[in-house]
Structure formats: C-alpha cells, structure tokens
C-alpha cells in the first residue's frame, strides 16, 4: 500500500486519477484472530489501528455488518473539543484532542481537522460564572480556555442576535480555540486504511450473530460469514450495544435514543466557529462545502429507527432563529437521525466485562465522534493488557453499582436527559 503524498497526487493527476490503489483490502475472514473487533465504525477502526501501532498486535479483524462509514461515524455533526469539567472526562477528552492534532500525519490521511474554535454562549450573568468555573477547571488541566465578554464576542462573532429583544440575550462566551471540526468520513477511511496497512483485516457485510464461550471465557464469534475464533473480542457498536451485548448475556445501563442532525443549502462563509447555544441544546458550524451543519436535543424516547420526529425539528429551528434570525431564509437540504447509546450517567463505558476476554466500548451518548482517537487508544490498551489505561479506568461498567457515576450534566439516571 503506497503512502499518500503531494508527489503521488501530482503523478496520479497526470494519469487522470484512474489508478489509485484501493484504500483497504476487502479481506476474507480467517479462521482465527488474536483480536476480533465487532463494529467497523470510528471507534472499532481506531481500536484496531492502535492495537497494531501501539501494541504490535496485527492479527486483528474488524467485523462490520454494513459498510465502513455507514454508521454513526458518518452521521454526526463533526465537532471535536475537550471542554469537559468532571474528573475522568477532562483528561480523557483532552488526550483525544491531542491525538486529533496529530492524526492526519499519523494516519497519512487528511482528516481535515479545522481548529476553528468552539464558542459556547452564556445568556445570563450566572451562566458566565459557570463558564468561568469551567474555564478554570480546563486551564488547571492544561487545556486552553478563554472567557469572552459580550463586546469581545461581538467583534469575533458578529452575526448573532445581540439586540435587547433577543429571547435569550447574549452575555458572553467560553471559547476553546483548539476545538473545531474534522471530516467525519475521512476519520473512518483514514483509520481503516492505516489499520489495513499494518495488517488488520477489515471485513464488511459480516454481522455478528452470537459469541462462542468456553468456561466463562469468550473464544470467538458466530457471524453471517461463519464462526471466527478469537483470543479476545472487543465490542464497539455504540447505538446498538444493548442488542449485541445481550447475545453475550450482558445487561447494561443503556437506552438507545435517536438524535437528529441537519444541513442547509450551501452559502458563502457565514459562521467561522462552532457556536453552541447556552439556554437550550443547539450547536452549529459551517462545512467546507458551505452548508450549515447543526443539531439539537434527543427526540426523547427509546428508538433504533434512524429517523426522528417533527417536534425536535421545530425546536431546533426555533433555537437557530433565536440566536441568528437571519438563518430563517435558508432551506434545509438534508436531515437524518442516528441511534445513540445513552448511558445512565451520560458518560461512556470502556471496560472489561464479566466474561473473560470480552471487552466493551460503548455508551457514547452523543459525544462519540470527538472521542474516537482516545477511545481507540484506550480500548486497544485495555484489550492488549486485559486492564484499563489510566485514562479509561473511570469508565467501568461497575461504576453504576458502586455509585461513582461520571455525570457531567448532573441529570441523574435518566438516559434521555443527558
């Protein structure tokens, strides 16, 4: 597999781009692997890549029931950030942010990381204080954070409703300048290609239908393409974790919910940063193609259907107009839904399971995309060492039983409220 480079681009351009090699092989499943990763989304592919790169474990298969890039890794709003405030989350997401910053070079694939800044608005004096507290926590962990007054914000982000008539007047904002967006498809393709180059088999259209167990230990998986033996099995199928884990007899503190996202028609540059509304749930950025990409809250009920309902569309549109009334004349090009693992505390699970050599990566709520690099990094470590990395040690399955939940939103054990 050849490295991508400016020279390659030039020589291929001379030949009309007709002979680019495939980015990864269409591998046939072998009888046995050292590690089988179930789920070829961003997290599964990143895990396989870091197993090979960091731990020298290259006899690895990634089993994907659909195709690479067809799940949540291609269904998100592409935001990456590390402005978390709770022990456990703060260092984990910052490690992810650091990996993002070197990812294109590491993978030899341009993931188009755009550190355009992440601006979270405050709509009251009290919310400004809460943002200051968050900024201080972040800075104490070595993470960049700035507080902007209303006037400073207005100079940087002029196109919001700063009038006194605004439903939620803007008081200022907390800004993380290193945060921004990345090209979501490129993350999947980049990890897949890089993992393939290190020897990982990526097997698409291969659904896991059951687990093979011997004496409390998992020794393989049953799939639609036959039985595949495995020294260890990692599950990375967020959205559908409950359904897969049930096949291994696990009961989980997870509900699946649908989250919608939206893209408008393309327009000239209007929104330079990621802007987040502070008095409700709404986040917006502009893609390189010019479309405004945004989303809001969960629909609020259990769902595996990858589509949502009109009340949330209505609510999201109302919020958009509350902060930027000039958006009212834009037309929506597309809107879609993705299925989220919502955990009981709003934080993920990257951990061993009660079954020996079966590992769980899931419960990403709607924060999975930004976590992709660190999730793969720490999950690979957990599988390779049969013990967690210090960064994912708090994300256990037992934390609910033990009363050490990581509840960033302070919402309590109601999955739909996180």
């Amino acid at each position: 597999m050849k490295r991508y480079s400016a020279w390659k681009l030039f020589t291929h351009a001379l030949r009309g781009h007709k002979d680019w090699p495939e980015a990864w092989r269409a591998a046939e499943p072998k009888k046995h692997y050292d590690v089988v990763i179930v789920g070829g989304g961003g997290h599964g592919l990143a895990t396989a890549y870091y197993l090979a790169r960091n731990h020298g474990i290259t006899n690895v298969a990634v089993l994907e029931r659909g195709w690479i890039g067809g799940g949540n890794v291609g269904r998100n709003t592409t935001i990456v950030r590390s402005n978390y405030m709770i022990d456990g989350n703060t260092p984990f997401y910052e490690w992810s942010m650091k990996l993002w910053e070197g990812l294109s070079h590491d993978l030899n694939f341009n993931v188009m990381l755009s550190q355009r800044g992440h601006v979270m608005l405050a709509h009251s004096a009290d919310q400004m204080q809460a943002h200051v507290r968050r900024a201080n926590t972040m800075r104490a962990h070595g993470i960049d954070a700035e507080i902007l007054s209303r006037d400073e914000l207005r100079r940087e982000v002029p196109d919001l409703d700063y009038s006194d008539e605004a439903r939620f007047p803007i008081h200022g904002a907390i800004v993380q300048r290193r945060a921004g967006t990345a090209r979501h498809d490129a993350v999947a393709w980049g990890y897949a290609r890089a993992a393939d180059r290190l020897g990982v088999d990526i097997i698409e259209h291969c659904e896991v239908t059951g687990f093979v167990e011997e004496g409390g230990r998992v020794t393989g998986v049953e799939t639609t393409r036959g039985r595949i033996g495995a020294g260890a099995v990692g599950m990375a199928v967020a959205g559908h974790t409950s359904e897969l884990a049930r096949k291994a007899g696990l009961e989980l503190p997870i509900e699946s919910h649908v989250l919608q996202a939206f893209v408008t028609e393309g327009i000239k540059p209007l929104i330079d940063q990621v802007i987040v509304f502070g008095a409700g749930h709404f986040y917006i950025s502009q893609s390189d193609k010019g479309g405004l990409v945004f989303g809001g809250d969960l629909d609020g009920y259990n769902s595996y259907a990858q589509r949502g309902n009109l009340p949330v569309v209505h609510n999201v549109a109302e919020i958009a107009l509350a902060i930027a009334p000039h958006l009212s004349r834009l037309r929506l090009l597309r809107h879609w839904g993705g299925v989220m693992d919502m955990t009981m505390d709003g934080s993920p699970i990257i951990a061993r399971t009660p079954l020996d050599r079966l590992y769980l990566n899931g419960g990403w709520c709607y924060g999975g995309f930004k976590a992709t690099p660190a999730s793969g990094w720490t999950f690979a470590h957990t599988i390779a060492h049969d013990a967690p990395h210090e960064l994912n040690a708090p994300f256990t399955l037992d934390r609910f039983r033990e009363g050490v939940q990581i509840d960033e939103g302070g919402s309590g054990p109601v999955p739909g409220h996180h």
Partner: protein
Amino acid sequence: MLRIPCPFCGERDHAEFSYGGDARVQRPALDDRSEERWYRYVFLRDNPRGPHREFWQHVGGCRAWLVVERDTGNHEILDVRFAADAMKEAQCE
C-alpha cells in the same frame, strides 16, 4: 410524528405527551434492602429493538399516565392502556 391513541382523549400527536421510560422495571418495596434489586431497578434496562412497553403521560390532555407498547425499530404503536390498569395486570401475571 408519533400519534398516540390516548384511551381517554383519542389519537393525539406525541408532542402532547411526556415520556416516562421503560414500564417493565418494577420498583422494589421501599423497605427492600437488596442492593442488587435497587441497582437493577435504577440502572439496568432491556433496551430492546422491537416491542417496548413504556410510560407516557398525556400532559397536554387528560394528564393520565399510560403504558404504550411501541416498536422501537419502526415507531409503530402496538397497544395503549391506562397505566393503572396495566400495572394491575402486570401484578396478576
């Protein structure tokens, strides 16, 4: 839009209703000291893809609590009854 046929008010948009989660979890008796049973009640959910019995309250209507059976794979509503009746039936089962 989900349309929920409220047994009292008739079929209404689900925006009139508030979601109350999985109706199959049973709260242990208040003097139950089993940590395991409380843990299961507070945290564990079946989360099936397919028929799911769940609470909805008709807050924009008669305010009754309902138990709705709904397919989480396609949002089809399969059955609706008053929660009080459904709970009595569940205890008899």
